[in-house]
């Protein structure tokens, strides 16, 4: 049977991916350039018995998503830079309370209102360090409409599996472009649901890690009564200030990602085998980078592309290996140098690292990247 295909906007593909993943709750607030995610889901979710609610502000949207998730729903919100800034406190709440949820960030310029209709990639550090306190982060950076569809599904899977918020970041260019998207058949792509507790309600402790790094999460209204708080807490979910308990709990919540990088990481390489220069690029910028690689190869320059699809946790191993292999790594970004700091950190001086930054609302084009490569080599 022929696959169902459609010409879809990136934001629409995101909404379709959410439905495939089993999302039954969306809480949002209108913001350019992400609003189409909300618009599409306001129509799609009630068809499957799901709930859509437009909340009074960005913070409320994030709060509603966490509340819904605690009842067992797979919950989503979508926003852009200013909205993510507002949501940060509650993203931290979802981290410490270990509540699965997905946050879509369709990136525009900044700071502040910036250029709402222009593309940007300046929230990539915010995705890791935006909320206060130490915490783990998972962020995915799809570069096409098809990939937005698939990575939105993977974001739900990772959120459910690792019991934490997962952010999907794509820039306005990918969010608003239209491409052919192939829909997956039911059962074709993996869909993960959070692990339910195996113990009785009387024995249940929401943060008991004796049977594994990620404690099962019960749902409100399923027979389990338990306490959830943003305070540091013990295994039973109740606040504690006991140093050893606080320390162990904080470390476990970070280790659960650090110890499972191999499961969470995802990247693509293009012509890197013999490459002397690596273009390290994500999102729409990686599409220009691929053209630049082709153009440079025609000129006899051995260029290759490394494209992270999981941005956080950072692809340390792959980046370090490429730094040993290549003479230079070029990092083009629609910001003035964010991920390049991580690349430099991991490269440890093994090769030259150079940035291309752009924040004028225009994309980085292949010629700009090729020019930088020639300048650096």
């Amino acid at each position, binding site marked *: 049977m022929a696959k169902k295909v459609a010409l879809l906007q990136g934001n629409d593909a995101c909404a379709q991916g959410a439905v495939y993943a089993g999302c*039954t*709750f969306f*809480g949002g607030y209108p913001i350019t350039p992400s609003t189409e995610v909300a618009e599409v889901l306001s*129509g799609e979710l*009630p*068809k499957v*018995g799901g*709930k859509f*609610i437009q*909340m*009074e*502000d960005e*913070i*409320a949207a994030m*709060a*509603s*998503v*966490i*509340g*819904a*998730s*605690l*009842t*067992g*729903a797979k*919950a989503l919100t979508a926003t852009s830079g200013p909205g993510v800034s507002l949501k940060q*406190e*509650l993203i931290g*709440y979802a981290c410490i309370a270990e509540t699965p949820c997905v946050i879509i960030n369709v990136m525009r310029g900044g700071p502040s209102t910036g250029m709402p209709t222009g593309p940007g990639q300046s929230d990539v550090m915010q995705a890791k360090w935006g909320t206060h306190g130490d915490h783990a982060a998972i962020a995915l950076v799809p570069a096409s409409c098809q990939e937005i569809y698939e990575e939105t599904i993977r974001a739900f899977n990772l959120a459910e599996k690792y019991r934490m918020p997962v952010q999907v970041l794509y820039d306005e260019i990918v969010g608003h472009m239209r491409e052919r998207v192939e829909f997956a058949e039911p059962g074709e792509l993996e869909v993960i649901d959070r692990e339910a507790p195996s113990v009785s*309600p009387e024995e249940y402790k929401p943060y008991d890690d004796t049977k594994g790094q990620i404690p099962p999460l019960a749902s*409100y*209204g399923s*027979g*389990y*009564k*338990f*306490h*959830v*708080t*943003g*305070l540091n807490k013990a295994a039973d979910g*109740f*606040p504690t200030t006991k140093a050893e308990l606080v320390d162990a709990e904080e470390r476990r919540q970070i280790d659960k990602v650090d110890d499972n990088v191999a499961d969470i990481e995802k990247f693509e390489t293009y012509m890197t085998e013999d490459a002397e220069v690596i273009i390290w690029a994500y999102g729409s910028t990686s599409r220009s980078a691929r053209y630049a690689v082709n153009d440079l190869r025609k000129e006899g320059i051995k260029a290759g592309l490394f494209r992270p699809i999981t941005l956080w946790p950072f692809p340390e191993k792959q980046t370090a290996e490429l730094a040993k292999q290549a003479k230079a790594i070029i990092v083009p970004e629609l910001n003035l140098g964010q991920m390049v700091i991580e690349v430099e950190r991991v490269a440890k001086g093994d090769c030259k690292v150079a940035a291309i930054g752009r924040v004028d609302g225009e994309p980085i084009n292949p010629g700009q990247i090729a020019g930088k490569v020639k300048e650096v080599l």
Partner: protein
Amino acid sequence: MAYDYDSSIRPGKLPHIWCPGCGHGIVMKGLIRAMDTCELDRKNTAIVSGIGCASRLPGYLDACTLHTAHGRAAAFATGVKMAKPEMDVIVCGGDGDGTAIGGNHFIHACRRNINMTYVLMNNFIYGMTGGQFSPCTPTGDKASTTPYGNPDPIFDISKLAIGAGASFVARTTAFHATQIDKLIAEGIKHKGMAVIEILDDCPTTYGRRNKFRSVVEMMERLKDMAVPVAAAAKLPAEKLEGKILTGILHQEDKPEYTAQYAEVIKKAQGA
């Protein structure tokens, strides 16, 4: 009716954090009586709060309890109720949490008329942070951040709730202990947003700065301030100066939000 408080309290969670003389414990007992009166199955009851002394209340109760971030209780609770409308949802918190940092969520929960019961303990002060003035600290009163007297006008929380669209609004005080559970129970039974404002006392951070020599004095003030709605109707305006009306202040039948959304689902599914 004999009430069994012990079976509602989580084992090992007492003593509570509240100071001697604080009214929050009176409210908690009232809430337990109300939940018992309404026979709420605690497995299907979510009790949601924000941050502050009053927001520590859910942790003591054996139910699905959610202690959220400062001001956000109503928004979290809206997510719970929307996702699982069959659950009973109770919100509790203080005046600063509910009407300053959480003011936007409070008025919009009222506007939607979503079926939950918001027990708002108004003790006129930010207690947990040490007594800064709240939107409900009476003008002229002393707080740690109003050393020359509070220049701010106050919110009338009940009027705010009525104006924002809540379909059940009631008020009483921590002195009127038996009225607390009756009003909360009425609020739980009501289909729609129910706000129960309970004027409360904070001897530690409000009382001592405002020349209340004892908790008894503070309780007596609450008693003196309260005028039941029916009695007030017969009193001339000058007799109501400085008083607050107590009892059910507003009740109406109007569409409830999750019921409205159930209709949206029917339409989307072509029924």
